[in-house]
């Protein structure tokens, strides 16, 4: 029996279900952290290939699952912008550089002499700008992959109780947007019935006012419905409880931001990294726990956290860790210089680390295909 057939057999015997959204997010964020360490275009393209593989293996047919191509397009735009800016605001050119073309130089006043506009554009500068853009674009694609693989609404349900209102607001606005579009189309069509000769602002008024009235009425009815269905039933919240929660969350978020900056920027002082992140996380957790105490709510069919979830999350985290410890390879391989011009190398350990992140394409359970029911009559 060939290997492919064996794999297909294993695949067919596993029970399809949707993976816990947090597992996908941990995996994607781990990979994103790994990406942030390198500008090696070969490694970055390998990451994109890994993302593509996992997505084709494990995405559903839901609308959000088709969003990945938009992230790819955005990544291309990011690279383009990076290259164009580097070409316009050109930096110093060394004699060995390969000049591609010269842009007309715009003289800058003496107090602005730090920046040159125009001038020669070298191949080396363009390539390193492209590699830099590629890193940013790949980071974006990691987030895009998480969005494509994890149901965003189920992800919001995982939010701790204190952030529940935020989640509801997002879900409601997601469902209101298409209604608003429908409303605009209806009113625009109706406008032709009156054949108004109005121009400019009056046209806007004849569309905006009925649409806004419609939207306002709809949201009032929705609010009334949510109220009568028990939304926001009070637990044991007091005003001081809410204030303490908000304070803790704010401080925690600041700590997390400072910590993330310290951890990712190699030049930042040591104490800013890990300690700040740990303190921030602790503050946030305390705030959330305190805030969640006032909520009395349960969750329908919560996603389980089983072995596949551990495996998927671990793959992402492992990639990140392997690219951080810089053991078994030199840090220069991660950020190859284009001065002088040469091919970037493919260091073994980082390559393996990134390939590990492709395992969820097999480790995650197969997706649940909805039974096709005939469309609405």
């Amino acid at each position, binding site marked *: 029996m060939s290997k492919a057939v064996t794999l297909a057999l294993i695949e067919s015997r596993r029970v399809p279900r949707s993976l816990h959204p947090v597992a996908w997010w941990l995996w994607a964020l781990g990979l994103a952290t790994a990406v942030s360490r390198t500008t090696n275009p070969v490694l970055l393209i390998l990451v994109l290939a890994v993302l593509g593989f996992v997505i084709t293996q494990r995405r559903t047919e839901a609308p959000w699952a088709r969003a990945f191509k938009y992230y790819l397009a955005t990544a291309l735009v990011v690279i383009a912008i990076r290259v164009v800016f580097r070409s316009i605001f050109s930096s110093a050119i060394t004699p060995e550089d390969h000049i591609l073309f010269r842009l007309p130089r715009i003289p800058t006043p003496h107090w602005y002499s730090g920046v040159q506009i125009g001038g020669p554009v070298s191949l080396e500068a363009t390539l390193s700008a492209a590699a830099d853009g590629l890193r940013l674009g790949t980071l974006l694609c990691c987030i895009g992959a998480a969005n494509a693989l994890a149901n965003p609404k189920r992800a919001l349900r995982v939010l701790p109780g204190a952030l529940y209102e935020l989640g509801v607001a997002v879900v409601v606005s997601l469902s209101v947007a298409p209604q608003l579009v429908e409303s605009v189309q209806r009113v625009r069509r109706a406008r032709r019935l009156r054949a108004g000769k109005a121009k400019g602002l009056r046209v806007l008024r004849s569309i905006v006012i*009925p649409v806004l009235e419609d939207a306002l009425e709809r949201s009032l009815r929705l609010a009334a419905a949510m109220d009568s269905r028990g939304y926001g039933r009070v637990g044991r919240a007091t005003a001081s409880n809410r204030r303490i929660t908000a304070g803790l969350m704010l401080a925690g978020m600041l700590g997390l931001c400072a910590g993330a900056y310290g951890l990712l920027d190699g030049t930042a002082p040591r104490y800013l990294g890990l300690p700040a992140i740990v303190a921030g996380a602790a503050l946030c957790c305390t705030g959330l726990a305190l805030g969640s105490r006032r909520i009395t709510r349960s969750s*329908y069919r919560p996603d389980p956290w089983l072995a596949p979830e551990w495996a998927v999350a671990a793959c992402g985290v492992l990639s990140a860790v392997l690219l951080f410890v810089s053991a078994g390879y030199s840090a220069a391989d991660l950020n190859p210089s284009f001065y002088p011009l040469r091919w970037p190398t493919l260091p073994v350990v980082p390559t393996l680390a990134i390939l590990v992140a492709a395992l969820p394409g097999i480790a995650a359970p197969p997706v649940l295909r909805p039974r096709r029911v005939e*469309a609405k009559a």
Partner: protein
Amino acid sequence: MIVFDHVSVTYSDADHPVLQDVNLQIPEGELCLLMGRTGSGKSTLLGAINGLVPHFTGGTLAGRVVVDGRDTATNPPREFADLIGVVMQDPTAGFVTDTVEEELAYGMEQLAVPADVMRKRVEEILDLLGLAELRDRPLYELSGGQQQRVAIGSVLTTHPKVLVLDEPTSALDPTAAEEVLATITRLVHDLGLTVILAEHRLERVVQYADRILYLAGDGSVRDDAPAEILATSAVAPPVVELGRLAGWQPLPLSVRDARRAAEPLRTELADRPVPPQRPPLTTLHADEPLLAARTILVRYGDLVAVRNVDVSLAAGQVTALMGRNGSGKSSLLWALQGSGARQGGTLRAGSAGLDTADVSAAKARSLVGLVPQTPADLLYLDTVQDELDQADAESSGVTDSSAPSARDLLDRLAPGIPDEVHPRDLSEGQRLALVLAIQLRAAPPVVLLDEPTRGLDYPGKQALTAILDDLAAEGRAIVVSTHDVEFVATAADRVIVMAQGEIVADGPTANVITASPAFSPQVAKILAPLPYLTVAQVAQARPPGQRR
């Protein structure tokens, strides 16, 4: 179960109360029907039960409303979520999530029902309401009847003792409405729920009610057995009107009871000539149609909304367009007007035989006028006067100067609407009249109305019938799309039935609507095989001495 103790409700900008000194005791397990004209306070009474009035709407509530021992004065609506389920007129307005299963679970999540109990209850409700096949479908893909059933299911999962329904069937076609009402009556019998139901189309529900709350319009509420209330009320379904006319005692409320009582009436009418259902058409020239359309095709991508439809409309004729939700009625009307999508077919309108899709919007509207399903879409100014002036300005140059002004038209359609009122503050019927007046200002020979009867009570529908008769008598061709078979029986000369974008029946009202039981008016069901459709016909057939 529900106690109203000297309840009065006054809204902040009103000078007199909507409800005045209302005292009610509704025991457990009753199906209680709320009846009254538009604006008589039905929604206020319903809202007061779970405290949405006044906690959410504002205004002042004097007295006490107590449900199962809980007072609405001290508890906001959300604290009643485990006790009272509220279903509104438009189910889509109340949906918080986007799939059937999650919507059913939403209320329970708010009440912190444990996950395993939730799972079990969702399965039970899916079976109870026949929704199991639809469990993971997005809510917006469902039909109107299915959406309304999901809305009912989503409040049932919290096991409430009281169900409050505000016109749950008003947007539904007859079959879907039957489906929803059957569900409600079954719940009353199976689960012993107390149900308070407001409904305009009484003919559908009056037979199921244990008692009726009648809102007279002056703030008072009469609470009595259905037969007692209906013997004298201003609004009554055709079966009751026929019973009153024939003097049947006790007053029958269902077609079944009426048919048993109608034996002598049928014998009496058998050898009398049947009066016409509608006055004979005086201006009809069928060979010179005002609008002739052939092989009309409307499609949205893969979905064919209207498939090769031929229609010709003659002057002086009122045509009713019927068919279930999504059968292509609206698409056809919009295509005929020229503003909607149309992929194929030919159309000739007016004396010049112009195609409404080829001419300017202003010209098209002087050939064919359309009042859309949501008339408010056409209104965007602050006062009725501004809207009317705008309509006059829009029509200058299209119609000659002798044409009546928009104000004259409005006064004919609905007299006494003041100039300075905001169009939003008008009643449903008044707003319809305003939009109709705006559209008639362009003097179109063909007038199309898309579901104008939605939200109109019996007197509102009578007024609309009179308006349509007037317009037809002036030599216009009228098309009305509607689900309301009783309205069709009194107002339409001709009926077109559509299904899946095709015309499946087209002919005189009497022939088409008696052909199938679902589309039959009550009088026809009671007096079959005699070809009577309306109470007015019966009254006309009996000699004056026998009338009461």
